[in-house]
């Protein structure tokens, strides 16, 4: 570092930016790693079954998995198409 650099030091250090980004990323990746590996396949097959009966899009279904000390929860959320739009 030279004398000139000393006077133009920047406000937010790049190291603190790196730490913040890593903390968010690592927390996210750790939680997704704990999910069972069958989730995407389950989501795909459920969607195929539902599509046999109801006209729903690709993103109409969401499957999420949560885990705490006592139990594992599999949450399934299906958004059915609006009745009004269906009639028209």
């Amino acid at each position, binding site marked *: 570092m030279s004398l000139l650099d000393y006077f133009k030091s920047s406000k937010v*250090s790049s190291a603190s930016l790196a730490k913040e980004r890593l*903390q968010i990323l690592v927390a996210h990746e750790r939680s997704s790693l704990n999910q069972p590996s069958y989730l995407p396949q389950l989501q795909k097959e459920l969607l195929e079954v539902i599509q046999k009966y109801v006209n729903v899009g690709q993103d109409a279904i969401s499957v999420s998995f949560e885990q705490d000390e006592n139990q594992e929860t599999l949450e399934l959320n299906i958004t059915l198409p609006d009745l009004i739009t269906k009639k028209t």
Partner: protein
Amino acid sequence: MARIIVVTSGKGGVGKTTTSAAIAMGLAKKGHKTAVIDFDVGLRNLDLIMGCERRVVYDFVNVINGEATLNQALIRDKNCNLLYILPASQTRDKDALSKEGVGRVLDELKKDFKYIVCDSPAGIEKGAHLAMYFADDAFVVTNPEVSSVRDSDRMLGILASKSYRAEQNQEPIKEYLLLTRYSPERVKLGEMLSVEDVQDILSLHLLGVIPESKSVLNASNSGTPVILDEKSDAGQAYGDIVARYLGENRPHRFIDDKKGFFRKFFGSK
């Protein structure tokens, strides 16, 4: 009882082979019979860092396939007669390693050696998986840099779930952090993640910090593990790491910027 140490990182180029060579030499110099194994089949380099590249006759894959005995393949180090190197094959691909084969070779080594250091290849594929699979201790080599820290975290997940110890519900692999290529000056300027930052993210026990040092390249140029360069900062840092691993209590060094006031203002580097 023999202990198997894996030197791992996920990311390439962070100093796994440099570290494997240094700590294996350090353990042997402390009087423990040590073997260091290169798991990077197809891209071996430990032989070059240890300076025994011209003495390789048989390799790890030959031993697994029964084409050579372990004693034929092990190369005795020229600097320390308690240290032996088992080189990787340069001509086969990584599928030449099998879990049974690696397990068999390690079991045989365990009868005769106190420490077995496994130098893992980069990545999370077969070679890297087998290098850590039978480990008792893991040295996670990390640079203070975003991609290296992320990959180390991924590696920790794999150590905790896909090792022999995890599969057998045994006591988990002991994990240690080795922060390499550390530059206290840049940390002070806010340009580099600090030791504390990396520990906050990875929550690992810090075994030691290796400063960014010219001596590492000098050592690899000449094929002598950097730990033998006792005058260098990196050599001393690896010496501390080996001592700490063996239970000595040594304060951490090379973490703070030691540059004087005058040099800071009127530059250097």
